[in-house]
């Protein structure tokens, strides 16, 4: 069966790339997906329907919709492992049950909320649990024999809160499972029926460090829903935001990795370089973490006409510092050796989990949504880097990508000139749209539905979903001392994951 043709054979909806299936057709789709390699993006619920989104060719979307029957639908997780996180989220928020699901444990609702299934038309009663949340291990985890240990949620480090439950044999991990939901802020509820500008600000606060990517994707989704396209110059300003964000975020991650690996000097060099870039950029763009500069219809920058000069200055800083930093990293005694051979992800795991971004690229996967984006015409180029899939390979790819982003900023400088920036006025019509951006950790994708001039529903795909699964997959067999390194190198982000 060709799942693409199968979906297209469904009933048309108001959105040209979304088709409504009957339950039997949906079940056939799940069966067909077990054999076919159609790239899965995510699954969400809006209370009456469930939707599943794929990207069959490049950035072209294709979605299937199924009406919930008695609050149930056939799960996708038997065919796409990562779907199980979406299914668990849908159950926690709407109470919609995924039949034949691979995992039915709670994901974010740990019985402490003021209502269960808070997004359902009739939310349930408050959770009855008091104190520290209890955790329900999976059967596989219970079967692992060894000493029980745990890390988080309050570790004194700066990442968003999550708990990692471990079973140890000596120092070796035999079983690992994450407990998430500590950072769940109810984004879906906050987005529901929100004003467009408010929704945009929220999308910038899903996960700091990826704010520009989130807001670019969100704004694009709004613009497509309105049938509008922003001008070329403004799109180039958005590329500046995206590439600068990648650069500073990768430096941040590299610093965390170096620190964790004991190379304090390398860590502080990374942070120092990051601060140099931010010191130039913040006064012109308007903030350090690049929040709220991308708005529906355009950009909002403190001084858009100076962005061309800023790019030149950033490229100069790159010239002055990047190669020294890169040499320091590669030559620092013991650093590569500390990172080599740990946390290895192979190609099979990549494909099974649908990983993308630098994590996939460092394991030989070739996925980058910049490839098919008009705004990257003449800027993005394919670069082959290391692909052994270990923490060391991932850091090497991050370091390379810092260099590539700096190069793109240099190329952007003459293109921008004295661009004025600005925004077009959108008239918000009812409809659906999709938008995406290659964030520091991979594809960030938004689907929005506008109704009566407001945002009625938002679905978000962030690389943190497959990253969390990859983290759990890769831990068994590793040394317990490497958990933080592996976590940082995969881009596990509880703030984005919990929503």
């Amino acid at each position, binding site marked *: 069966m060709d799942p693409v043709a199968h979906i297209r054979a469904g009933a048309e909806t108001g959105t040209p790339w979304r088709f409504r299936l009957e339950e039997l057709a949906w079940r056939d789709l799940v069966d067909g997906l077990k054999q076919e390699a159609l790239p899965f993006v995510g699954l969400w619920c809006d209370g009456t329907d469930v939707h599943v989104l794929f990207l069959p060719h490049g950035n072209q979307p294709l979605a299937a919709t199924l009406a919930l029957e008695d609050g149930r639908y056939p799960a996708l997780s038997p065919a796409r492992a990562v779907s199980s996180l979406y299914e668990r989220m849908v159950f926690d928020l709407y109470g919609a049950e995924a039949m034949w699901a691979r995992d039915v444990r709670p994901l974010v609702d740990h019985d402490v909320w003021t209502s269960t299934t808070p997004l359902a038309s009739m939310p349930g009663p408050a959770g009855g649990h008091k104190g520290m949340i209890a955790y329900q291990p999976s059967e596989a985890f219970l079967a692992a024999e060894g000493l029980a240990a745990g890390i988080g949620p309050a570790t004194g480090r700066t990442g968003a809160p999550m708990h990692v439950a471990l079973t140890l044999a000596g120092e070796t991990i035999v079983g690992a499972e994450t407990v998430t*939901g500590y950072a769940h802020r109810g984004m879906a509820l906050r987005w529901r029926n929100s004003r467009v500008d408010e929704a945009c600000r929220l999308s910038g606060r899903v996960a700091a460090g990826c704010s520009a990517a989130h807001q670019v994707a969100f704004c694009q989704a709004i613009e497509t829903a309105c049938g509008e396209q922003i001008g070329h110059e403004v799109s180039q300003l958005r590329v500046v935001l995206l590439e600068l964000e990648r650069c500073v975020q990768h430096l941040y991650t590299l610093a965390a990795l170096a620190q964790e690996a004991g190379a304090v000097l390398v860590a502080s060099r990374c942070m120092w370089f990051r601060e140099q870039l931010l010191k130039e950029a913040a006064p012109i763009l308007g903030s350090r973490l690049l929040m709220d500069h991308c708005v529906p219809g355009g950009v909002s920058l403190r001084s858009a006409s100076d962005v061309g000069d800023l790019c030149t200055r950033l490229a100069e800083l790159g010239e002055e510092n990047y190669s020294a930093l890169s040499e320091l990293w590669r030559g620092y005694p013991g650093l590569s050796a500390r990172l080599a051979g740990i946390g290895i992800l192979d190609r099979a795991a990549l494909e099974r989990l649908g990983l993308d971004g630098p994590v996939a690229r460092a394991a030989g996967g070739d996925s980058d949504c910049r490839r098919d984006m008009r705004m990257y015409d003449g800027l993005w180029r394919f670069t082959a880097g290391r692909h052994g899939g270990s923490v060391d390979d991932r850091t090497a790819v991050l370091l390379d990508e810092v260099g590539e982003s700096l190069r793109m900023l240099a190329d952007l400088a003459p293109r921008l000139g004295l661009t004025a920036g600005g925004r077009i006025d959108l008239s918000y019509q009812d409809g659906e749209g999709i938008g995406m951006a290659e964030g520091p950790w991979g594809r960030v994708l938004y689907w929005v539905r506008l109704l009566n001039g407001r945002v009625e529903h938002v679905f978000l795909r962030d690389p943190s979903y497959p990253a969390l699964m990859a983290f759990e997959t890769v831990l068994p067999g590793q040394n317990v001392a490497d958990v933080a390194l592996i976590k940082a190198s995969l881009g596990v982000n509880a703030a984005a994951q919990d929503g």
Partner: protein
Amino acid sequence: MGLIRAVFDATFRQGGARLKPVGPRWPLLLFHVDTGGCGGCGMELQALATGPYDAQGAGFGFVQSPRAADVLLVTGAVTRSMMPVLEATWQAMPTPKGLICVGNCAVDGGMFTENYAVMGGLDRKVQIDLRIPGCPPSPHDVLEGLFSLFGKRLEENASAGQDEGVGSSSTSS
């Protein structure tokens, strides 16, 4: 959460009954808990801790255990799952101790006002010794806020620090 009562007493100012002398030349040890926000405030704290701000030279250190901490730095809007964790962290800290909210989220929820999962900041729930607003506050804002604990301004100390030869630790340039 009435349990969390900050006893940020005179110790930080003058002559409290504390064994360890305190003041700008002694590190004030900070323990950070993210209680559920976007993580931006945490990133700025990290920039302060490892970037070229010389937080340690200015008398502040970050620790990985609440048992070693003087001050609890809270970021994030305080989700219902994190509240008991925050409480336990506070209980684990030796007295005297202080509570500082970094960022709008931690103060009053900021963008993440109260809902089914979120309590919406610590304001009016517990005694807060210092509020550092912003979404997120910059590392400089945070450092300035911390300095105000000593009744000093950042610039004053920067020159004083140099005169006294206070060592720099986190700058590698």
